[in-house]
């Protein structure tokens, strides 16, 4: 058979409770392939709280510590401090939180962890809404998206506000390393994780996790949609290492955002004007990213 392009070892077990086609499970799977088994994962309230299955089973082959919704950043700091005191210096501490648990309720603790320079990894898996509780909008929900709290009706046409730029917020804290990763590009994902593992200091990942029930698409399209997110520049793949930006993947000509938006029911109500607005916004952000890459 062809050589495997990502490590063979599975540290995520089968029999977990994720929806069919769940992007968040692939995020965990690729993360753990990159980190290996000397890892402790701390998880706040989010889809993965449930995906990991109820007592008495667990879906990971590494220790998992549940923590409070707001507090992932603090949990990472606590684990790191204890690990250092107990002589477990080679153990990687990872916080694995959803978008709501990071950009909204978890922002303060994340900021604290970064500011304290905690030697740990914070991974935000982004399905762009509070999915575990049934698709309510979060600060990471993209502009225009339908959710249960930004429905489409006479007085409401999806989320009004733009998506919070978590990478910009994280970058302002000058982490040792930050990167966007996408389940549609597993080799890039694993490579970045392996790179981060070897770096000391606060590290952050923004992982795109397409969600069939929340984004309203048929489950087999998860990877295709993930791919389109990057190829339309809606979710560019890049790294920030010691303040230096490096884009991981550049198409000669990006695909139009419409190709991405039309795959998902949550955007079905958008009119041409709204799509044009989104295109303009994406183009501006891409230009800005290119400029950031240009800065030495």
């Amino acid at each position, binding site marked *: 058979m062809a050589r495997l392009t990502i490590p063979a070892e599975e540290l995520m077990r*089968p029999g*977990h409770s994720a929806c*069919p086609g769940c992007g968040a499970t692939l995020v965990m799977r690729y993360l753990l392939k990159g980190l290996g088994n000397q890892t402790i994962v701390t998880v706040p309230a989010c889809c993965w709280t449930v995906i990991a*299955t109820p007592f008495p089973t*667990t879906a990971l082959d590494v220790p998992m510590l549940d923590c409070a919704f707001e507090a992932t950043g603090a949990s990472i700091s606590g684990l790191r401090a204890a690990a250092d005191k107990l002589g477990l210096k080679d153990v990687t501490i990872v916080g694995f939180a959803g978008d709501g648990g990071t950009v909204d309720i978890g922002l303060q603790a994340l900021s604290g962890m970064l500011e304290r320079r905690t030697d740990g990894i914070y991974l935000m898996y982004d399905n762009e809404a509070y999915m575990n509780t049934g698709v309510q909008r979060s600060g990471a929900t993209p502009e225009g998206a339908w959710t249960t709290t930004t429905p489409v009706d006479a007085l409401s046409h999806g989320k009004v506000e733009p998506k919070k730029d978590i990478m910009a917020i994280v970058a302002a804290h000058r982490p040792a390393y930050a990167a966007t990763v996408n389940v549609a590009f597993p080799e890039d994902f694993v490579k970045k994780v392996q790179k981060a593992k070897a770096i000391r200091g606060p590290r952050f990942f923004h992982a795109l996790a397409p969600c069939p029930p929340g984004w309203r698409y048929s489950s087999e399209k998860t990877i295709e949609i993930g791919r389109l997110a990057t190829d339309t520049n809606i979710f560019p793949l890049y790294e920030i290492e010691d303040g230096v930006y490096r884009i991981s993947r550049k198409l000669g000509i990006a695909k139009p955002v419409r190709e991405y938006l039309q795959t998902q029911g949550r955007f079905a109500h958008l009119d041409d004007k709204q799509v044009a607005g989104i295109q303009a916004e994406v183009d501006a952000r891409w230009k800005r990213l290119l400029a950031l890459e240009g800065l030495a």
Partner: protein
Amino acid sequence: MTSYEMEEDLPEAPIATTPSDVNHTASWRTFRPVIDLKICTKCNVCWKFCPDDAVAFDGEGYPVIRLDYCKGCAICAEECRPKAITMVKEE
């Protein structure tokens, strides 16, 4: 799997230690993937993108669907470039 009927059987703290493999999620699916080994090029893409750890390999390196776990999401069928996988309705 350990049975936790009584308080005395529970661990003192809420610690789960049984691997989730005991949960067979086969009943979740409506369609199951069928791989045509004549078309399959053993590229491993189905294994790479499966969210449920439901793709194993046989002695010759061909993918084998672990039907205990496959939820029928069809990502494998969608991503298989030679189109060796078809989704067949479960009876």
